[in-house]
């Protein structure tokens, strides 16, 4: 909202500087988004002069040497060098004399320009701060008095503040509103505009102008006032009125329309002015529109209305979309003589809904949506009558039609000054609080002693719809006291901070620390991804289940079910910019569906890229599945997953972009976590425009499955006696998982050693396929380590057990011992 300083000064005496005013407005709670200065700023030593002679500068093609009469008081005729093309003899122009300071802190001095004396400067509009650019000197009227200060003959400058008004303060959406606020800040009285018209006294009844008003939608229109005038003469507004509107960015139309706008900007009450001759049947009806009803609005657009919208209609058709915009069919025209002024209140929700559905907003709807003061509505119409009669003439005629508006307004808040001090946490005296409240017209009408306290009854003006509880008055006191005056204090924490950080935060920290330590770079991607991407990389089900109802752009329409796609996109971006990238990770929420229900998971994912094009003077081995597996295992442990019980199984089938035979998964949605990783599908990666071979891994776990650390672990004693090692090679079917064989072997070994001593570990150290083995078989080399807690083992006792193990492992026939 734009507020003109000159206009404000009509209602409150303001002598503060623009900076002080800006600060006051800001601290009152209105953000100043811009300050625009219009008109001529106050200037000294800038006067009217007349060019007497003009000669070409001997040393410069584009310069002229002028003699200029600036009046006897300024020293008569001066010589001034000028570069403007229009410094013609006889022109009266602004002259900045030595000593003048022009906008931009440009100081004018006696000087020599290309060897020629110049005592002053002839000015263009931009040099005076009147325009952002200009092409020549500012030409003044031929009768502008020579020697007179330019400020005396130019219109006064103005300052326009562009303000953001919060939605709780509709009362501030006018010059009077802001004047009330600034008057409170500076403790000045508000001067309301004098009104001479105070209701109909002459009793001229002209039902042929407006006979009656019928409100058929009283819940949407609690108050409607219509008043007729006859004999008005449409024409341009007087200069002062045009100037006010132009200052705040409105285009003057004609005196009637301009008065309507002026009153709205002055008092905050939007008005509508009808050409009475266009009201068929001379009755205005406030009603819901008929579904599909059409109205061509003033902006030339045809609007299709619905039955949730309110219109002002005559007996035949809608004339106005209530509170939003008039129809072209009832517009005031040059030949209009009889008019009806509408001043009404509409339910904010109704106006907001209509504006939204029509995609239409106006200065009027902006105010109605936030709520206008019903107690100022009729007064605004009276103010308009005064201004119309002053600018367009005319006579008020009856009957004045007032429907509704009979709700009594009385609101009082009981608050004690102690309560305000308790909420603020610092001392403000009772007197200062009273002063602050009363400056805002919040009058303490009663003070009831409740020793040692006192309760104030504060009367709330009708326009302050935002105040209805004691806490609301705390803010009012603080606003006027100054929110920048809250005294400093030391922040005080509790003696002991109870409660630990959420397990999610702790998990994220651990994962991040681990992966950063493993030389991964953390990236952050958008949660929303495209349907196409999900369909290609994940599944059609995901693309269906994870869709937003109202995406903003097509490529951000779905929740991400994986972090890998973002990692791949980050990899691609870096490759395309020639930035080597090999290891990336991200943590964040992912969304996966199971049987039609989506769950929000915590995700942690990483990506490794081996790009043969990136050369190195010293080769390092490429990552592989087992690099991924190790990272996944550590992430799983950080999430508190019991990895020992997790079965990594090969991923088969399409979806999620894994390369079949080179990726694996553990866990699943139904148990609340899953871990997957491996090689990304080579063809898909290439099709996505990514170079090299890409491995990835992701952990997803339901937040509720994470638990706080289970306290401290207990120490386990370990043996100080030596191990005895035995190697065993077993031949099994090539497709058989090695871990399955290892567990079988471990189980037998544990059973065979019994209580005498322990099998400490069974580890795979070799995998072999090929020559010397039957087709479809592989050999797994295991190292078995035996150790006792109490003594050094002998070869004999270990050999006995080892023999037993070898006999038992072949028992089911699926395993043979390799010679």
């Amino acid at each position, binding site marked *: 909202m734009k507020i003109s300083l000159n206009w404000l000064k009509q209602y409150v005496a303001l002598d503060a500087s623009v900076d002080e005013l800006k600060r006051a407005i800001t601290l009152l709670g209105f953000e100043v988004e811009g300050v625009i200065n219009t008109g001529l700023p106050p200037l000294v030593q800038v006067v009217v002069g007349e060019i007497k002679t003009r000669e070409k500068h001997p040393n410069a093609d584009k310069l002229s040497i002028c003699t200029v009469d600036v009046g006897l008081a300024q020293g008569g005729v001066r010589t001034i060098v000028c570069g403007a093309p229009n410094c013609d003899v006889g022109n009266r122009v602004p002259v900045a004399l030595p000593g003048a300071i022009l906008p931009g802190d440009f100081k004018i001095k006696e000087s020599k320009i290309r060897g020629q004396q110049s005592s002053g400067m002839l000015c263009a509009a931009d040099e005076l701060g009147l325009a952002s650019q200009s092409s020549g000197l500012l030409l003044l009227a031929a009768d502008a008095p020579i020697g007179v200060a330019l400020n005396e003959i130019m219109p006064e400058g103005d300052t326009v503040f562009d303000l953001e008004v919060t939605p709780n303060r509709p009362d501030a959406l006018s010059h009077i509103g802001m004047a009330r606020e600034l008057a409170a800040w500076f403790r000045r009285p508000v001067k309301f505009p004098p009104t001479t018209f105070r209701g109909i006294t002459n009793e001229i009844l002209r039902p042929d102008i407006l006979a009656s008003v019928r409100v058929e939608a009283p819940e949407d229109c609690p108050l409607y006032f219509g008043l007729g005038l006859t004999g008005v003469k449409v024409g341009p507004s007087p200069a002062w009125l045009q100037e006010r509107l132009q200052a705040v960015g409105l285009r003057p139309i004609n005196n009637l329309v301009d008065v309507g706008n002026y009153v709205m900007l002055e008092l905050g009450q939007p008005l509508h002015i009808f050409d009475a001759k266009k009201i068929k049947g001379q009755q205005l009806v406030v009603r819901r529109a008929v579904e599909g009803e059409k109205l061509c609005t003033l902006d030339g657009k045809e609007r299709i209305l619905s039955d949730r919208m309110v219109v002002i209609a005559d007996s035949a058709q809608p004339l106005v979309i209530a509170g939003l915009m008039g129809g072209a069919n009832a517009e005031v025209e040059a030949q209009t003589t009889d008019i009806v002024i509408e001043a009404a209140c509409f339910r904010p929700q109704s106006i907001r809904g209509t504006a939204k559905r029509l995609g239409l907003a106006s200065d009027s709807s902006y105010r109605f949506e936030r709520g206008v003061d019903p107690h100022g509505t009729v007064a605004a119409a009276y103010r308009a009558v005064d201004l119309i009669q002053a600018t367009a003439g005319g006579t008020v005629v009856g009957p004045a039609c007032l429907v509704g508006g009979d709700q009594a307004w009385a609101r009082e808040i009981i608050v004690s000054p102690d309560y305000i001090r308790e909420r603020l946490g610092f001392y403000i005296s009772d007197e200062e609080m009273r002063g602050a409240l009363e400056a805002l017209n919040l009058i303490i009408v009663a003070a009831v002693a409740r020793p040692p306290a006192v309760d104030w009854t504060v009367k709330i003006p009708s326009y302050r719809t935002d105040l209805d509880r004691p806490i609301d008055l705390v803010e009012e006191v603080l606003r006027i006291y100054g929110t920048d005056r809250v005294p400093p204090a030391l922040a005080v924490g509790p003696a002991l901070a109870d409660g630990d950080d959420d397990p999610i*935060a702790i998990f994220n920290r651990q994962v991040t620390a681990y992966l950063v330590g493993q030389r991964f770079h953390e990236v952050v991607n958008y949660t929303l991804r495209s349907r196409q991407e999900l369909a290609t990389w994940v599944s059609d089900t995901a693309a269906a289940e994870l869709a937003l109802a109202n995406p903003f752009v097509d490529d951000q329409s779905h929740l991400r079910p994986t972090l890998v796609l973002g990692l791949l996109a980050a990899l691609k971006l870096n490759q395309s910019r020639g930035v080597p990238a090999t290891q990336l990770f991200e943590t964040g929420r992912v969304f996966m569906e199971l049987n039609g229900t989506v769950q929000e998971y915590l995700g942690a994912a990483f990506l490794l890229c081996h790009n043969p094009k990136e050369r190195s003077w010293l080769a390092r081995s490429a990552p592989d599945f087992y690099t991924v597996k190790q990272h996944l295992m550590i992430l799983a442990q950080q999430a508190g997953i019991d990895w020992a019980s997790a079965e990594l199984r090969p991923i088969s089938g399409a979806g999620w972009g894994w390369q079949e035979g080179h990726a694996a998964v553990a866990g699943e949605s139904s148990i609340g976590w899953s871990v997957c990783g491996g090689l990304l599908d080579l063809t898909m990666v290439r099709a996505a425009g990514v170079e090299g071979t890409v491995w990835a891994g992701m952990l997803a776990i339901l937040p509720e499955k994470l638990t706080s650390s289970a306290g401290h672990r207990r120490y386990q004693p370990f043996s100080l006696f030596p191990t005895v090692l035995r190697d065993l090679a077993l031949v099994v079917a090539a497709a058989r998982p090695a871990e399955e064989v290892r567990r079988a072997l471990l189980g037998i070994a544990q059973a065979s050693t019994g209580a005498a001593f322990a099998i400490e570990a069974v580890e795979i150290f070799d995998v072999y396929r090929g020559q010397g083995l039957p087709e479809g078989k592989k050999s797994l080399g295991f190292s078995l380590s035996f150790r006792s807690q109490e003594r050094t083992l002998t070869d004999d006792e270990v050999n006995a057990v080892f023999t037993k193990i070898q006999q038992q492992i072949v028992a089911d026939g699926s395993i043979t011992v390799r010679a």
Partner: protein
Amino acid sequence: MQVTLSALLAKASAEFVGLQSRADFEAAKARYVGPNGELTALMKQMGAVPKEQRPALGKLINEAKGQLQGQLDAALARISSAEIAAQLGAAIDPTLPSPDAGPGTSHPLTLVREEMCRILRKAGFAVVEGPEVETEYYCFDALSTPADHPARDAQDTFYFPAQARFGNISKKVAGEKYLLRTHTSSVQIRTMLKGKPPLRVVSPGRVYRRDTSDATHSANFHQIECLYVDKNVTVRDLKALLDYIFASLLGKNTKTRFRPHYFGYTEPSFEVDLSAQHLPKVNKEWIEIGGCGMVDPAVFEGVGYDSTVWTGYAFGMGLERLAMLMYGIDDIRYFYQNDLRFLKQFT
């Protein structure tokens, strides 16, 4: 015998000089001092020597043995050092770069978030988390957002279709719609409903607005919010916390200022301005950094806290905005592009 010994020594030393490998060395050693070695053979002849000659001969043999051992040691040392030299290869050039990747990096948003959490931890605030998919109750209703408030509009908020079901996100009101949270304030509501006052919590997290992406706007961004609920919490306490946070984060010459503002869930409400002209690219006296206020009594009543007993404050701000201010970053999109030349600058 002496002649024999001398000849033996001469032969041995000529042979030892030429030894190249450990195997040759062991063979040569065996030939002279092994059980069947030549010197050993000579020593075995001692028994046949007359008793009176034995001391002199023994001395001679011992001398020869000592000389032989010295030559063997020298040969072994020579072979060992040759082996080590072969194992070592050419000397390194310390100026060649390591082919291994440089250090990993945390994202700047992570760094700022963690720093804020550390600072708040000192003031007793513990991190709380909540879901990013929320319901209308937690995101709007419980925060006193009117039913027709523009923030709830499908114009500004991402919603899910009416039939969407989220298994681990609880609804408060039957039939309410799922949406992507527009602020982390929803976590405050969940925390208050789950816990009991007093509370000191901080909720960092990702939030969503249906907005055009440009240099200062992003479809998702991050917020960090504090909530303090206790008896007798005042406006002055809130100001003290903010002064402490920003002095800790940005330096002691950072000032904060309150401006009255309006939020549905706090009263009074303020916007917080920072004066931090020592930071890069700061050319305004006051920069808006976040919103705050005293928790509105209606919010307390909504979560079942007696608003005549409990008071509190809340404060929230955008992490991207804070990171941009701290690091002098001028485009929010850099946080989501993940160009490593950007990401590597912050740790």
